[in-house]
């Protein structure tokens, strides 16, 4: 195997292309492209996606545009065995959609209780940061759902994935990506 072959960049995997359904046809898109093209969500509701985008953007700037909602939606819509989510290695019990629904509901419940009935996506930036900081430290009275620090860890990881875990993310930080292998198949 030549050095060039070993270092060949892969456009599918490390680029973050996933299988999305557009017009009944399965196509490979990055989550960012899926968002930009308005690919319909399969599992999350529009309200859940709005909360997830706002939360992702608060955690890691750029997560909204990088398609965190489409990434998570696609991932919780496929069999758990195929999922690429950090939830997999943080010992979350499948189906992963259950965790995300519960986590996003907990965030909105806390937001409503602390901010006159407004959901997280409706808050100003400072309010969103304040809530996330309290959630991170498990300091929200009456929190209901998966533990606040764990929700913070897992959603932050998803946001890091879509912003920094891709080849574009590495390029943005000036880090050589250096993959061993070009993908030979979609998996």
């Amino acid at each position: 195997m030549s050095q060039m072959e070993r270092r060949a960049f892969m456009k599918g995997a490390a680029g973050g292309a996933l299988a999305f359904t557009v017009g009944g046809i399965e196509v490979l898109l990055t989550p960012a492209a899926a968002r930009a093209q308005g690919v319909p969500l399969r599992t999350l509701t529009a309200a859940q996606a709005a909360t997830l985008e706002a939360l992702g953007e608060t955690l890691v700037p750029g997560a909204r545009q990088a398609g965190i909602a489409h990434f998570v939606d696609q991932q919780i819509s496929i069999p758990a065995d195929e999922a690429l989510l950090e939830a997999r290695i943080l010992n979350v019990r499948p189906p992963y959609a259950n965790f995300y629904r519960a986590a996003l509901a907990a965030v909105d419940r806390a937001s409503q209780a602390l901010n006159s009935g407004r959901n997280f996506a409706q808050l100003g930036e400072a309010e969103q940061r304040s809530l996330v900081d309290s959630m991170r430290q498990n300091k929200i009275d009456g929190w209901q759902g998966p533990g606040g620090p764990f929700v913070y860890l897992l959603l932050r990881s998803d946001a890091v994935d879509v912003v920094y875990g891709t080849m574009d993310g590495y390029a943005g930080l000036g880090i050589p990506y250096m993959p061993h292998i070009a993908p030979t198949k979609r998996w």
Partner: protein
Amino acid sequence: MANEKVDVVIVGAGASGSTYAAALAKAGKKVVVLEQGPDWQLSDLISSDFWGRRVKPAGAPFLLEGKNPVSYGYQGGWGVGGAALHYFANFPRLLPNDFRIKSEHNRAHDWPISYQDVAPYYDKVARDVGVSGDAKAEEIWRPAGDPYPMPPMKTFRNGQIWLKGFESVGIRMVPAAVGMNSTEYKGRPACIYDGWCHVGCPIGALANPLVTYLADARKAGAEVRPWSSVTRVLTNAQGTKVTGVEYYDQKKERQVQEASVVVLAAWAAQNPRLLLNSSTDKHPRGLANTNGLVGKYMMTHFSSGTLAIFDENVENHMGTTGAQYMSYERYGKTAHKGAFGSSFIVAGTALKTSDLGGFANARLDLFGPELAAFMKRAARGFSRIGAFGEEMPNIENRIELASDKDEFGMPLGRIIHSYDDDVPKLWEANFAEGLAIAKAAGAKEMWSGRGNIPTIHLMGGTIMGTGAENSVVNSYGQTHEISNLYMAGPGIFATSGASNPTYTIFALSLRGAEQLATKWSTIAG
């Protein structure tokens, strides 16, 4: 559905199962290896943190309980190759003091064997799979043995930069022993230091089972059946011998594989789960469990990570996920005043951005613009060192069957795990020393990687000992109660030591397999 009877059925195609399969197939035995997950190929090992999660378990059938629940997801294996498909391939060994803690400190257990019983197998494994390192340098801490077949790996600035700090506190660092190729070895290429070891090495420079023992096993005629989920070990009517296993295939259809010998190599937690689920009227508490010790003495390692940012480009993307340097300088059980247990120290690791070990997680308290600013600083100057700590075996740390069941009707397992008072003391001692090292190394920013005390490398559950009064298996992994039933993997460790376990897993598995082959007619007859 029954399959043709074979000599040996091995449950699990990871490090230990592959080693047994190779040794026994080469000894002329008809071997079938059952693996619950996919039949991964090297070409599946894509260099990406989130794609790399595909080779890890998705919701393993265990409930995690206790004050320090065991975290298996990052380290666990799923599919052919097991966890050794994506391990870091650090190859430190246990030291002589690990084998006699009871004799020397009146704590824990002695092993029924000594370091000298295992040492020849460390050397054999090194030749079989390829190890790079400097054995002579290690001999300041251990008895002499064979040289490693390859010279040490390259080092990089992200490792070198720490050496001055270690020297300042009197810690000698030597080239890390790793299961990787510093040069071409047995037709496998040399490492190219891209730092993607933790998601699997697709060029075979890292000694994963697909390119070492499992390849040998297949070449010698062993059959590997992926998507085969074993649910029970079967016995004869008298309960004196095992006769095979029950499993479910990819179509979810029940199968039986009869065999003269059964080797459970399914992971430290899964082996007890299988034994407990295989109860019969002759073995009402589960197989090999008359003494009630199956599932007991689960152990993990914990690490004290010291993290730092240096005022230079340390090229932290370069190298391997394993270590460049290692040290046993704090391996004495009482090396840290006021704490008990060994510590094993490593330095120099390639880092990626995301995933559990990525540098985004180096400052979990940061989010938003502060995280973005940190990522830019860390991309240039971040590095870390680590000290693994040893947990003493505690009978309360255990596996039990739960009332919930999996898709095949098999009860889930409960892994109940809590650290005792020794652990935080050792954890803190290593943090304190780590910060002193970072300061002396000239770090610009330095901090301890705190949070919950981590649980790394699950071991125990079917520990070895001198007899049924204190253990489940003998030093070969053969159960005391049923002579043709073997346990393989880290579950048979009597104590955990502090060094990464896989080298010892290979060595003990090779030792057990050779004993089985040598005494075949007595054991299988």
